[in-house]
């Protein structure tokens, strides 16, 4: 079975993170624009909110599917790790679960009650939708920070138990969480800018860029801090990124971010290619997450300069049927293609048209 479980998990995480960075960002942009439309009496902002919301609607469930895929991959390929996480990180996982349960219905309610309830109430629903979106990584990113720099797991090993909120005492968690939120807002902005550019909506384009640029710049110090904190809390990953195998990925990420900063500022002030900016922002997420997950290889839980090899938690209870795994992978890729087809019809062929009343 060799390294396959590690790469399968990494692939699922990458795809999931790329999709959810779009949905979380567009969720906030939608909710905030809708609220400002009400507070300022700005009709355009309401139409803009609808445009951003369309992106969220199309992406949300499919991005969620990849979350489910991660869970099954974890339980199937890494049963020991899953058993440990559901014990030590019970509370963060529960927070994520409840947030998912609030997020999806709130999207439905927000959608259906648009124009049917008082704008104040509708804005409130929108905020619940956006905040519940941010609460999902508040749960799940605790798992990532734990496998990068164990806090709750360390307490568990030392004392035989971990208190419910220990994972949140980790500096790495807060840096990673902020980094995630800022990245999603930046990506959401660039994706919205891309969509509005298709419709020659100049104001929408500007708003999208503003989100993209602002949170991209806000992300830079957090990103640097996050990188530097690895030197103290997760030196194996720091070494791997800064001097080791993942240096090319790190360089790629820095290059993409630098390009994105320069091009997006130019685009905001003068003119640019929203398609390129959206792609660059998604690439930044891709490279960031690739380092976040991949630089720990061959460890799954990093403990300073070394760690627990991923095989310590892999499923050796059965001989995993490789044919089945490859067939599954192939079909999962087909599902991505089908989804992209739907996306093409929804957004490019404009089967999901944007401006209400037109």
């Amino acid at each position, binding site marked *: 079975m060799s390294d396959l479980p590690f790469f399968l998990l990494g692939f699922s995480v990458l795809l999931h993170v790329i999709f959810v960075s779009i949905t979380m960002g567009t969720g906030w942009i939608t909710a905030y624009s809708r609220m400002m439309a009400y507070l300022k009496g700005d009709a355009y902002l309401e139409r803009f909110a*609808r445009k951003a919301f369309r992106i969220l*609607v199309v992406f949300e*469930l*499919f991005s969620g599917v990849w979350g*489910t*895929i991660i*869970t*099954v991959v974890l*339980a*199937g*390929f890494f*049963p*020991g790790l*899953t*058993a440990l996480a*559901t*014990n030590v990180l*019970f509370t963060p*996982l*529960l927070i994520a*679960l409840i947030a998912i*349960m609030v997020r*999806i*219905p709130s*999207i*439905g*309610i927000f*959608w259906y009650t648009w*124009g049917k309830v008082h704008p104040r109430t509708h804005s409130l629903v929108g905020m619940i939708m956006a905040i519940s979106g941010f609460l999902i990584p508040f749960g799940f990113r605790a798992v990532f920070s734990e496998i990068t720099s164990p806090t709750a797991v360390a307490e568990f090993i030392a004392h035989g138990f971990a208190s*419910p909120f220990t994972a949140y005492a980790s500096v790495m968690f807060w840096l990673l969480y902020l980094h995630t939120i800022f990245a999603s807002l930046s990506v959401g902005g660039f994706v919205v800018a891309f969509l509005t550019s298709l419709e020659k909506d100049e104001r929408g384009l500007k708003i999208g860029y503003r989100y993209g640029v602002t949170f991209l710049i806000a992300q830079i110090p957090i990103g640097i801090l996050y990188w530097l904190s690895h030197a103290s809390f997760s030196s194996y990953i720091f070494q791997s990124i800064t001097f080791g195998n993942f240096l090319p990925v790190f360089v790629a990420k820095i290059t993409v971010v630098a390009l994105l900063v320069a091009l997006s500022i130019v685009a905001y002030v003068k003119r640019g290619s929203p398609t390129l900016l959206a792609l660059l922002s998604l690439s930044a997420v891709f490279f960031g997450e690739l380092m976040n997950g991949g630089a720990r290889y061959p460890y799954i839980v990093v403990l300073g300069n070394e760690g627990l090899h991923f095989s*310590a*938690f*892999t*499923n*050796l*209870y*059965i*001989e*995993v*049927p490789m044919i*089945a*795994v490859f*067939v*599954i992978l192939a*079909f*999962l890729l*087909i*599902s*991505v293609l*089908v*989804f992209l087809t*739907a996306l093409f*019809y*929804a957004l490019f062929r404009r*089967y*999901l*048209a944007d*401006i*209400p009343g*037109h």
Partner: protein
Amino acid sequence: MLEGMLALSALGVYFHALFVSITLGFPLVIMALLYKYDKTGDEDYFRSAKIATSVLAVNFALGAITGTLVEFGLVQAWPGTIIAIATFAFVPLALELVAFALEIAFLVLFIVTLGKIKPIKSFLILAVYWIFAVFSGVLITAVNSWLIAPWGTGIVAKALYPFMPEFGPLSTDVEKLLALKILALATGIPIQAIIQIPEVSAKLGIVLFDPYVAFLSPYALASILHNLFAAFLVGTSIALLAYAIRYHQSKEERHLKTIRVVAPIVLVLFLVQPTIFGHLMGASVVEFNPSKFAMMENALMSYKNPLIAFVAYGDPSKEIVGFDQLKSSCDLHGNAKLGDLANSVGLSKEKVLLIAKEVGVTVDAKKVSAVYDANLRDVCLSDLEKAISKIQVVHVSYYTKIFFGVIGFLASISLFVSLKFKRFSNLFNRFLGDKTLLILSIAIFLGSAIPSALGWFVREVGRKPWTVYGLLYPEELVTIVGYALTPQFLAFMALVILAIALSGIYAMLIVAKREIRFLELLRGEKNE
């Protein structure tokens, strides 16, 4: 608190089952309506298909949420099941990912393109979606069926409980599984505490030789057919009831047209479900779950009933096997100890202690000895007593299910003939007046939903005191997180589940009732 956790899990499963039924049943209705629209060009069929699509979309989201809840519930509340997920359920669950991902991709494609492409193309896209939804149901039911009839464990359960059958060929390493069980019993901690230790999997090694074994179970085949058709029936009868209510309220012809399309589907499902698949399921219970069958038939003592015996055994002269016979089979153990059984597969006390040391489990040798000294006959009798404690509730539930099933069966035939033949229509109208369609649709709905709910209850409670029939108890699989088993936590989670599920059902009602067009809403053409 274990009972509370079981009830909480059941709550999540029930809501998920409701949404899954709609997920599986509504596409049949929508496809039939699209087919009629394609053939006749009558816009009314398309309009009805769009309303059903609105409900399907909201429902799918709720199905996904409750599915996530059930999935997390499984690994968080019952983490001991992770060992099953990693072994017997590995292939079914991995394949289920494919089904789920493609299901959602095709549903999005269907919704986005409905009304923009030819109806027959929409029909085909939905058909592909439905096939993956059904495939998903097949796989999940295969996993659930393994818990009820743990196929591939051969003679293991029978060695502990002589009244039990053999569960297929032996595809497991009995020594290792028994070692895990003995360690759980000796330490008094759930299996999670053992499998979470790094390297345990490597040190224990292969415990299952055939990862596909869950698919080979005859019990799974019967369950899959029975459960899927129950879901189709519930889903289509919900659609039928919804259109009957609309027709009753508005008297609009278009709703009647839809009812005429849906009623034959419901009839066909009602004709095959109890007669073929229900019987197949019953026969499987008789063969593989003797204690459940005794509970269903309230057979504290064995008795004669030619009708039940004929249906169950194909022989009216046979006796219904009751708990008296099951208990007397426990006597076959004589004075044998659990240790004798362990030793017979080469698992000595010393070896258990060695395994414990190797995997890093701290266990008292005296407690291992106590487990080895456990009298098998006492264990067998004690577990049967636990099953007997639930005999009344299972029996009453089972026969209530049968009663409502018969009502639904008769109502579906009545609805069909009243729609098809004027003479019957007049006859029904004489007794039921202008509420004929509504009353028959309500009866059909109750005749499908209540048997499904009670059927699941009988399925789950009937296998107690085990979670994996004859092998593992709930207390061995439950979480080791203490606060998850407090009344406060259970009440909180129950409230969260209820709030989400009930508001979701309300949302579906609104979408269906107000007829604000979901697809136009999606496209931003309404609702300014």
